[in-house]
């Protein structure tokens, strides 16, 4: 992976990705339930849950990767840039964990009930 530079965008990029994922998660669920709601008896084993789970895991993976890249690049830099990348790494990590925890209920709850 290409070395991450200490651009201030990294201070918010993780949470921007998280926000887009969150809107896609809630919006996608709402639209899917309006357009093609699966039977309530199917429980959590539906195409909607499967799609949301894949989306969640993919987002979590990308964010974890970015966290690792930021952490790896930080020590070599001067104080202000190191400050930015260390915060960015924590934000990527916490965004990944947020996505994972918030997305987890798709494993157990039916989508449209």
């Amino acid at each position, binding site marked *: 992976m290409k070395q991450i530079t200490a651009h201030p965008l990294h201070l918010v990029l993780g949470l921007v990705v998280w926000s887009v994922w*969150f809107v896609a998660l809630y*919006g996608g669920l709402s639209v899917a339930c309006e357009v093609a709601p699966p039977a309530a008896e199917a429980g959590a084993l539906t195409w909607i849950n499967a799609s949301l789970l894949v989306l969640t895991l993919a987002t979590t993976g990308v964010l974890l990767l970015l966290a690792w890249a930021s952490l790896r690049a930080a020590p070599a830099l001067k104080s*202000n840039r190191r400050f930015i990348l260390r*915060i960015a790494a924590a934000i990527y990590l916490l965004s990944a964990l947020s996505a994972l925890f918030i997305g987890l209920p798709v494993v157990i709850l039916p989508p449209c*009930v």
Partner: protein
Amino acid sequence: MNNTETLHQRFEKVWGNLPGLGTLSAVNHTSIGRRFMMTGAVFFLIGGLLAMLARTQLALPQQNILSADVYSQVFTMHGTVMMFLFAIPILEGTAIYMIPKLIGARDLVFPRISSLGYYCYLFGGIIIMSSLFLGVAPDSGWFMYTPLSSAEFSPGPGSDFWLLGITFVEISAVAAGVELTVSILRSRAPGMTLSKMPIFCWYILAMALMIVFGFPPLILASVLLELERAAGMPFFEVAAGGDPILWQHLFWLFGHPEVYIIFLPAAGIISTIIPVFSGRPIVGYRWIVLSIILTGFISFGLWVHHMFTIGIPQLAQAFFAIASMMVAIPTAIQVFAWLATLWTGKVVYNLPMLWVFGFLIVFVCGGLTGVMLAMVPFNWQVHDTHFVVAHLHYVLVGGMFFPLIAGLYYWLPQFSGRMPSERLGRWGFWLTFIGFNATFLMMHLTGLLGMPRRVYTYEGGLGWDWLNLLSSVGGFVMAAGVAMIILDVVLHFHFGRKAKVNPWKADTLEWATGMPPTPYNFASIPNIETRHPLWEQPELTRSIPQGQHGLTEIEHGRRETYGSDAISGKLKEVMHLPTNSWWPLSAAFCLAIVCVSLLVRFYPVAIIGTIAAAACLLRWSWENGAHPAAAPVTENEPRNPPLHSRTFDGPGLWGMVITLLADGALYLSLLFGWFYLWTVSPEWAVPEESAVSLPWLTASGIFLTIAVVLYNRLVARLRRGDDSGLGSGLWLVSAVSVAHLAILLWVTVSAPLQFTELAHDAVLLVMLMFLIFHSGLSVIVTALQALRVRFGYVHKGLPYEPIVIKPLWVYSLGIFWCSLASFFLLPMAWGMS
């Protein structure tokens, strides 16, 4: 007279307000911040008085002191005043007052915008309050749920007062949001990197950006509801394809972040005070910055937790329940950082710290009930009871009012040059703290026993009697505490002992601005290489006023401050700031006329007012760049660093981009409304044939695209130092875009839109009006630039303004094609599939 005194007299001449009535034209951040705070305090007293009325009515069962109707007006106005006219403006006022002083700047970067913001707030507040005195105040709750607030159930003008007044006030909030963001990022003292910035500035930066993104959904919702009430456009009416739940979504998209918009600056005050009174730097500066950014984002993902009982799927509720619990984590990070700082420091227990401890206790309790409410089954159980009211007050009073008073006592010497009374102050604290807990701790129990909120009275013998009585007594004790604080503050101006320089031994720069501060804050601006300048260089309190640092030239008569790089704090330019002006007051006054005319439905005057306001704003914009009133081109102007209007990356460009972010949030809210109604509204109906001519709309878009391409080419050439044909090029762009605008107007006017019968057509009309407004604005400001070329205010040496306008053109083009795709092409494709 020594040299220092002469220097200060010269600065005073350039930076001072005009005498007498002329002070109304003041734009200086110290004056404007003070006015915001004073006005906010007056509204707080009115809001408190309304709370006392409500508590008097509820003290005993079956009372008739207030009728049901008046009680509804009282609690609606209490919430509205406290949220919109007190909490946000007073914190913005604090930020406006403090930020330049903390970052080593002489003023905010758009001082006239500050002034406009203040007058919008003042006039908007007066308009809303007048409804109370006229006996026609809004009565649907501070959240104004539809259809309760719609014409059918609220036929009087109450809702209109709320919608128009609040929208007016919110212009002020967004203006402050834009201004504070750009000022913090671009006008810090040289050397002050992001990592050296005072922690309070991080909080205010987050708050300002949250306002930029959070307020537009409510502005849109208010505009839509007012259009429904005044013009019969049925956005929230189910029978016509609208949906009242859309209001709730838009309101809480604003309303939840609002809680954090209020909490963050208050937490910033706490993070500023605790290290000073612990005598050590704050523990975990980086962790706090992290938690501020996290709070700023995650708080936007919680809005549905206010809507757990409206019937959304359990899975969606689970998403929002977990997100609601997660937002406690960044808050907890801050609480632990504060506790660790106190733990490892040598704490001085005095008045500001008393309020800090009060905050820690009350706010943590409020946070805990917040986590309880995030759990869906519990939320269902206590929904619409006094438990929720109690939680809200623990969070808002604990999380905002206590820190605010801590900040008031902390910065009072900076404000007046005198110290508060410890004895009166302690009486004020304990009465407030005891009274507050007696009121709201009991209310948790009242709620758990099932007492619903918003009822004006109740039966006796339900177990609520003594709790309500205690709550009411507590309310009056708290009021006595507030009275004590007011007394202390008023008396201290006369009887308070004189404060020493930096009386609390603080670390930040505001204590080097003089007590009370001078209008220009710093006679000379130092390089700042540390996070704690006054701890590491205490001599700054002398060397700054003695003019031993940068930017001491004042003979030119310009108000100047340094412009620096947003990240590294490296010196980039000298920003010349506008001086006292009547234009902001005139523009706000015209807008107030528009507001009142719309209230009384006298539309011709509203149109005249709009034109007059536009004229004021455009005339104001004329005094920019190299205009004689701004910074005329002279032989001896600074070259290294240059004046900002001679550069490509001045604050105006940043202001434009941040404003467009707010505008974009409004547009996205409109797009959300469109998709929401399309997919969710039970009676959504689409006309068989589109009323709008798609080919003509496309033709209009092609003209717009040509105009934007031409404009971008002109700007690219200007950047290369080539201004040949600039004036004629700008006229050509204006002409092409007039063709675009003419077609767009014709398409809109000629379309047989059934905007009073179909929500579909009503939304389309709003979207078309949105495009017309932006295209019209782009044409006018470009034509103005063409004129400025003729006057010699714009050329290759003065490229500032055409570059500022470029993002507006790109944005107008973006929303045009995005609208065409979302509002016309996508529904067609969907219909065909």
